[in-house]
């Protein structure tokens, strides 16, 4: 099978590749988003602790 045939997917290329694209987008997008959410929370928590230490 040639590469263009592979992309064509027997005429269903659009449906097959959008489905797989969405799958990878959701799975890896979620990982990247959650990692940045964690980093942001870590930063905010550090700032919170610094502020409360300065107050006391």
């Amino acid at each position: 099978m040639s590469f263009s045939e592979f992309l064509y997917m027997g005429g269903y290329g659009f449906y097959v590749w959008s489905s797989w694209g969405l799958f990878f987008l959701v799975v890896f997008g979620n990982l990247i988003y959650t990692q940045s959410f964690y980093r942001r929370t870590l930063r905010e928590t550090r700032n919170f602790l610094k502020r409360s230490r300065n107050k006391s």
Partner: protein
Amino acid sequence: MNRIVQFFHKTVSPEYFYWLSGKLIPWFIGIFVVVLAFGVWGAFTAPTDYQQGESYRIIFVHVPAAYMSMLIYVCMAVAGFIGLVWHIKLAEITAVASAPIGAAFTALALATGSLWGKPMWGTYWVWDARLTSELILLFLYIGVIALYNAIDDHRKAARAVAILALVGVVNIPIIHFSVEWWSTLHQPATLSKLDQPSMHPDMLRPLLIMIVACTIYFPGILFMRIRAMLLRQERRSRWVARLLGEEGT
């Protein structure tokens, strides 16, 4: 018996779980990526379907997504129930943290389903039992997220969310049996009878591998979310101060 109880209490303490999950996450994500690579390879080397042609390759993402949408819902409801009954903070957070992950998989199942429906049924959407009950599942997840954000007190919010999640469990068997109870465009289940699968082994194997990959992915991403939520909710506690103090603020 006493030791088991002690072990349980240690594991569900926020401080210990934060440490433990930090160690486990790279393993879950790493194994997930390896298994996923096998699944993708298998999905595109499997033979072509004699009825649906190449379009059936959507099944390798659609079925795992739909399966995850229900698995995560059940996990969320069980965690919510445990939190509700025993007031375990980690269980409450687990329930709340599951919702956005489950919602993402539900949306993915609906989207890949309609991308499969268009070439096979000639339409992106029909209001039949399987599709409608899966859409209701998405609304339940969105309801859980919205309800949690609407209540300021984390503990009270988690309790309200647990009750909503438990009521919504009734939808899970409806989704599962919808293809048997009502006449529908949706094809019958591929996997409900593992002893006599309705799929050729060369197609079934990559499908099962994709499902295993997603099942390993779930605790990885869930623990990442839980860690962030634990930090935020426990920021006044001694263990967070100790942890972040040692890292040098």
